[in-house]
């Protein structure tokens, strides 16, 4: 069986991590090898980025039989949308390693990180629904382990909670997938769970499709999370170790969005359009709701949890805005927010590592001790609040335009995004980092060279994406055009 | 004539069987429970014999023989267990044996 580029990207971390787990190597070796692996994966993904043709087709396809009796195939592919997320993942994870470098964790930690990478990339690249479900579930276990073993506070409760919560959602998705497969079998007489096949089903009635649609949506809504399903987020974020929360916020939540676009949109275009208003409403509501909730949080991670929830709600609104502005903006905000929030969580991680877990009121005066950290923090924060010149601004502008196109009033309300994040982020910056208090922050150390290089290169990318967004966006344009015109049949901008 | 007697045999067997069931459920004494099980078995034997007589073939009666054999082998286990249980609890009341009761949070 010939191994394609994508399989290599997916399974290299898995293999390495197993080897590391079996071999009697120490923590440091494990960490270094794991880091090298992620770098290799990053380079591979770069080659994908540069060899990516400017079309809306799936590229770098891989297709092998797996469980032939039920037509389950091992099939992978990349299109513009998943390509940028792939780039995101493979770029962010090495950065994460740089920042987790000095955490004195056992080798299991690093091995789990590799496993997570396999899980997320697999879920990202698989085009067979069973394969997708396969990765989607299995990427949960290392997270379960990481939070449970290395977490803090009420970690066991929260890790059980997130696991069970997420599995509940994905089980509903499983039923829907099976239902689709059976429907395909009844119509065409052969088994298949290929996305490209399942979209051809015509026999399902509207009611059935609606049920299936929500079967899928629950899974993704819990992962993202969309409004009523968000309560696991806060506990989990505040109890996770830095690596876990970094992965959860920067990557996994984004996969929920990705899942909607990749599977729900082509499978149920009619429902997608039909229920778009509700999700746009939920999104804009969530944007403001979570934003206000974040204002008075005492725990930084908890505040960031709410802030991510707010942004993700905004992204959700964007992908349901049914026009190219919103979709493009959502795609761009996925990247922008992942970078910024990931960076922020890593920086907060270093603060925690030096000073221990503290509430915001227990911090302060860090800026004097750690100027580089402060600058980096500020840059990430600018992107979060969507300051022009950062990618955050471009994406938020596009989404607001999309929502405006969708409905003028919604658009006007959603424009309040420029206020929401700024209102609490700058306050947090003031209280936690800048202002000198009588708390003892003498143990605070500034970033070391690796970290500076890492975080500032990230910041450079953020700025570049803000100053020259076109160069980053033109590759996904055909894909989104394809979604809107060929699948949803709503046209790029109604 | 034969029909009538046949039906009556069957009816007798069924009555015995039901008695067995009732005994199994209502009686507390281990021995009597064991006996009612035997009673059911024998009711079935009676049925078998009746049927083989009615069909005019032997296999019903052969089966009955085998059933008796099986009942005997079961009897062995029964009696040995009853003895063991009596040794342990000095009681033949079946309701006294509830050490395996589900405790709310064990």
């Amino acid at each position, binding site marked *: 069986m010939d191994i394609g580029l994508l399989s290599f990207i997916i399974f290299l971390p898995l293999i390495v991590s197993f080897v590391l787990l079996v071999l009697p190597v120490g923590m440091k070796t494990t960490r270094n090898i794991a880091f090298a692996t992620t770098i290799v994966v990053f380079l591979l993904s770069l080659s994908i980025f540069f060899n990516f043709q400017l079309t809306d087709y799936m590229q770098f396809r891989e297709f092998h039989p797996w469980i032939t009796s039920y037509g389950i195939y091992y099939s992978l592919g990349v299109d513009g949308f998943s390509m940028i997320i792939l780039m995101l993942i493979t770029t962010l994870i090495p950065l994460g390693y740089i920042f987790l470098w000095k955490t004195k964790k056992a080798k299991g930690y690093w091995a789990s990180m590799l496993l997570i990478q396999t899980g997320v990339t697999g879920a990202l690249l698989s085009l067979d629904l069973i394969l997708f479900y396969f990765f989607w579930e299995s990427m949960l276990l290392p997270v379960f382990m990481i939070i449970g073993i290395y977490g803090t506070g009420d970690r066991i409760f929260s890790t059980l909670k997130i696991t069970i919560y997420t599995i509940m959602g994905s089980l509903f998705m499983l039923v829907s997938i099976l239902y689709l497969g059976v429907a395909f079998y009844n119509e065409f007489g052969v088994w298949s769970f290929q996305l490209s096949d399942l979209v051809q089903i015509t026999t399902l009635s509207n009611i059935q499709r609606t049920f299936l649609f929500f079967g899928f949506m629950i899974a993704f809504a819990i992962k993202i999370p969309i409004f009523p399903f968000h309560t696991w987020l806060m506990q989990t974020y505040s109890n996770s170790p830095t690596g876990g929360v970094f992965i959860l916020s920067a990557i996994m939540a984004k996969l929920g969005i990705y899942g909607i676009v990749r599977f729900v949109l082509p499978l149920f275009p009619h429902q997608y359009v039909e229920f778009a208003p509700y999700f746009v409403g939920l999104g804009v509501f969530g944007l403001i709701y979570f934003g206000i909730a974040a204002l008075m949080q005492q725990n930084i991670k908890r505040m960031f949890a709410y802030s991510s929830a707010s942004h993700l709600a905004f992204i959700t609104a964007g992908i349901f805005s049914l026009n190219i502005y919103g979709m493009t903006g959502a795609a761009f905000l996925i990247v922008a927010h992942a970078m910024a929030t990931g960076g922020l969580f890593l920086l907060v991680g270093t603060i925690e590592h030096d000073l221990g877990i503290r509430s915001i009121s227990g911090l302060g005066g860090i800026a004097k001790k750690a100027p580089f950290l402060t600058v980096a923090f500020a840059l990430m924060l600018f992107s979060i609040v969507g300051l022009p010149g950062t990618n955050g601004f471009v994406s938020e502008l596009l989404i*607001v335009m999309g929502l405006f196109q969708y409905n003028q009033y919604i658009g006007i309300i959603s424009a309040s995004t420029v206020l929401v994040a*700024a209102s609490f982020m700058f306050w947090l910056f003031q209280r936690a980092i800048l202002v000198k208090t009588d708390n003892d922050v003498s143990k605070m150390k500034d970033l070391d060279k690796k970290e500076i290089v890492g975080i500032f290169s990230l910041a450079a990318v953020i700025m570049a994406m803000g100053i020259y967004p*076109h160069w980053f966006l033109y590759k996904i344009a055909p894909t989104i055009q394809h979604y809107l015109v060929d699948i949803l049949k709503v046209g790029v901008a109604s | 004539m034969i029909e009538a007697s046949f039906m009556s045999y069957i009816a007798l067997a069924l009555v015995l069987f039901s008695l067995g069931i009732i005994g199994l*459920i209502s009686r507390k004494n281990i021995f009597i429970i064991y006996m009612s099980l035997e009673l059911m078995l024998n009711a079935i034997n009676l049925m078998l014999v009746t049927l083989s007589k009615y069909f005019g073939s032997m296999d019903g009666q052969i089966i009955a023989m085998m059933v008796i054999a099986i009942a005997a082998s079961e009897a062995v286990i029964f009696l040995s267990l009853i003895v063991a249980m009596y040794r342990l609890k000095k009681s033949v009341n079946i309701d006294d044996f509830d050490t395996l009761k*589900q405790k709310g949070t064990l």
Partner: protein
Amino acid sequence: MNSFFLAWIVLVPFISSILLGSMYLYSISVKKIPNSVFTFLAVLSPLISFILGVLFFIGLENGASDYIYEPYTWLQVNGYIISMGFLGDRLSIFMVLFITFIGLMIHIYATGYMKGDEGYGKFFSYFNLFIASMLLLVLANSPIIMFIGWEGVGLCSYLLIGFYFTEPLNVVAGNKAFIVNRVGDLGFLIGLIFLFFYVGKLGFDYGALEEYVSIVPNHILTIIGIALFVGAMGKSAQIPLYVWLPDAMAGPTPVSALIHAATMVTAGVYMVARFHFLYDLIPNVGLFIAYIGAFSALFAAVIAMKQTDIKKILAYSTISQLGYMFIAVGLGFYSTGLFHVFTHAFFKALLFMGAGAVIIALHHEQNIFKMGGLRKKLPLVYTVMLIATLSISGIPPFSGFFSKDEILLKAYSHHEYLIYAIGLFTAALTAYYMFRLFFVTFYGKNYKEHHMQSISWSIKAPLVVLAFGAAFAGFMGLPDVFGGENLIDGWLNMWSGKALHVEYSVEYILMAISVIAGLLGILVSFLKFYRYDFNQKIQESGVVYNKFYIDEIYNFLFVRSLQKLSVFISVVVDDGIIDKTVMSLSNGFINLGRIIGRMQCANTRAYAFFMLVGLSSFSLYLILKLG
């Protein structure tokens, strides 16, 4: 002149700011870099921009058409292209000139003012960044790009207000400035998006907008106009979004001079002027703007009368002067407004720098009632302050007179008598409170002696330069009554459309009235404060002194209520309702299990009975099935 250099007007300060910033981080973390290096870079970059500006100016003078430079496509979505474009027309070059010039002056001033401050490099990094953003704002060829600069200057003001970030008050003031500006930007953004969806698709640079703006339905135009102006309210500190500016004085004085007096706060005026083609179509909105301006002018002046902090007084006077500018642009006399922007930049910068000099000399004392009798001690500062004060009070022949008087004249001639009256009254008040400041600072009796700190030349030189500007800049806009011809009007002539229809006689009378008003104000304050006795207790209370409690009201209305709501959401709704529901579902299931688990009663006969029940239910089912 190659339009390619337009970008470099912006890029030079931008690059140097990044250089300065990294050098600063290097010097604090690795090894010290001498301040001279920072000084050199910092002063060089605005100088280069200024020279470039001058070159473009000459180019335009020689009748060259507008310079446009579009290096790349910033964003292309749905086939509509927004390109990163720079536009060098007469308006923007005019702005570039005075921004870079005044910027240069204040940079030089700051080198003296910030001497010995540990954040020296950081300060100039921010300063250059500000110049860059401001220049991007004025040079941008598309509203979106302009918005980048627009937010950029806001950011710089945030950074510079909170320059001494270890002090809570400064950072709070910075946050306040940023958030309030953000409120304005919200409006601005909405305006932009409306604009994009109604005309922008035909091209989103000013040329195209000007060409096609007429296709927009009128009510939409009104919305756009108001929304954009909300942005201007934020940036230029007009009612009701002015609250951030007085607090912004927490920053170092050069910051106040450059950002919160001369340049950034005038961005709103510039924006309205830039969108003249839009506002020309909606005179009602223009009138609204004018009234907002008028009331801001009056309101700020009233508040200023009672303030004691020298910089606060100047801040309120800035708000008041900005009000004048909005009167002008609102009524459609853009060049007049910009004329006032121009003169105001000189005398207000001068005032701030003079105040700064005083503050330095008195070891960072800002309360004017702790000063007094500085005339002997600081003769030069005294002189320049006198010039500037006269200029702002509108006394001929100083620059302020011409610009302000022209505004009043235009208002009168436009038959907006109420605005005219307010303006006139405000002029009197301005004269009053400015001279109050002046007299209390430099005259008065039995003030206590101060131990003076010497003022370096790098501070004095710019004062002198600007003093000349404050004195004579007005002659650039000499009204034709005096046989002069308005250079500013001439330079920006392409759209100062409305002709003046008042006879010279009326104009003379109006001038006389405004001069008299000014003199009146001066007289009053002279009587009250020329021989001010520093022993007497000045009352620091009252509605006016407390700025009509506006801050408290805002705080109660928005901040407190939001915080309460936030707690409510996160504690009551999330943890209390949603999460409780989720958890109670699972716990309920487990408890139900405990109850059902009772069936495992370990009673043989009961088990047998269950089996019997099953058996009978089966037989029942069978009977029903077979009928």
